[in-house]
C-alpha cells in the first residue's frame, strides 16, 4: 500500500516537473479558461509524456483529465515546489476575472442579455403594422 502511494506521488512529481520545465506547457496552462484550451493543454502534455495519467483515466475526456491535474496540484507542498506552475495558475485566475468584465460588456453590446426577457423588450421597439404602410426609424 505504502509502495503504491509512493509510486503515485512519484508520478505526480514527474508530471509537474515536465510542466514546470516546459515554457510552452506553462503558457498553455495560463490560458486554460475553456474546455477547448483545457483539451489543448492536456493533449500537449500527453504528447511530451504519454503516460502522464494512469490507464484508469484513459476513458475520461480531456476536460476531466485537466480537473484531475488540478486536483493533484492541490495537494500540500506542490505550489511551493513547483512555483512556475503555481504562478501560471494564479495568472489563469486573473485572466478569468478580467475576461468576465469584457464578457458582460459584449453580452450587453449585442443584445444577448441572459438576465431579462430581451425578446419582448427588443420586439416592442420595432414597428409592427398589420396593414399600415408606414416607416419607423432604425433601432439605435
Amino acid at each position: 500500500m505504502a509502495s503504491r502511494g509512493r509510486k503515485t506521488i512519484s508520478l505526480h512529481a514527474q508530471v509537474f516537473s515536465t510542466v514546470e520545465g516546459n515554457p510552452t506547457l506553462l503558457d498553455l496552462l495560463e490560458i486554460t479558461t475553456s474546455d477547448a484550451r483545457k483539451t489543448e493543454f492536456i493533449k500537449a502534455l500527453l504528447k511530451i509524456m504519454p503516460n502522464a495519467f494512469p490507464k484508469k483515466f484513459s476513458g475520461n475526456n480531456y476536460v476531466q483529465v485537466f480537473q484531475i491535474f488540478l486536483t493533484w496540484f492541490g495537494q500540500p507542498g506542490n505550489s511551493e515546489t513547483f512555483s512556475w506552475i503555481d504562478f501560471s495558475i494564479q495568472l489563469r485566475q486573473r485572466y478569468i476575472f478580467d475576461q468576465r468584465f469584457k464578457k458582460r460588456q459584449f453580452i450587453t453590446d449585442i443584445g444577448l442579455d441572459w438576465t431579462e426577457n430581451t425578446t419582448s423588450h427588443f420586439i416592442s421597439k420595432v414597428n409592427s403594422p398589420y396593414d399600415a404602410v408606414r416607416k419607423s426609424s432604425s433601432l439605435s
Partner: protein
Amino acid sequence: MKTPYPPKYKWIVESKAIADLWRDHIDNGPQPDKRHQRYPLFLLDPAKLSLDVDSDTDLIVYDKKTKQLVMVILRNFTDHPELLSSMGDIIKANVEHRKSMRVCIIQSIYFIISHHFFQLADPGKIVQVGISAGARSKPSLDWVKNILKKHSDDFVDDLDRKTAHAFSLLWMLIRRRLPDELSDDLVTWMAETGIYRMNKEAVRGFRENSATGEIELDIGGNSLDFQWAELAPPSGAMAANYSR
C-alpha cells in the same frame, strides 16, 4: 395579396436609364445555364407598392386577417464590428475548405452512374456545416464530411468547433431578438425528437448529447467563453456571394 406587385419572374428596374443600361445584357448576354428562359425587364411604379422599406427601417409585418407573421426586417442585427469580423473569418474559412452544397444530380437512363453538376446559374458558394442527413441513397445522421482537401484532424476539429460556436451565438440571438413564432417549430421539434445539437463531440460519442454546452468566441483578440450556452440546431449553411 391577390396580384403580387411587382410581378414575379421579371428583372425589376427603377428607372428607364437603368433599363436602357441593362437591356442588351438581359436580352442578349451570355447565360450561365441556357436551360432557363430569359426574364424580361419590368419598370417599377413605386405608387403601386403596398410597402416600401428603406435601408434604415426595421419592420415586422403581420397578416391583417390571420394575424400571422408575414415578414421581419431587422437592420444591423449584429451591430458589433468585432463580432462581425470574427464571424466573417469563420465564414471565409468554411467557404474555402468545404464543398458547395448546391449540386444538381441528373440520372441518365443510358448510364448506371449519375452526373453531378454545380448549379450553373447560381453565383457564389454555399456550404453545409454541422450534421448531415447523409446521401439520399444512404441516409444516416453524422457530422458533415465535405472538406475539400486533406487536412489534419486537429485543423478540421478546430474549424468545426469554431463554426458550431458561431452558430450557437447566432441561435441565441435569434431566440432573444426575433419573434418566438419564427423559432417555435424548430424548438419543439428538437425537444420532441431529442436530435443532436450542432456539437461534433456529442455526435461522435465523446460527450453527452445536451441542448447546452460551453462555447468560446474570439472577439477582437479576446477569447470569451460562455458556460451553459444554448447550442445551435443540428445543421446550418454558410455562404459567400451566393444567390439564386
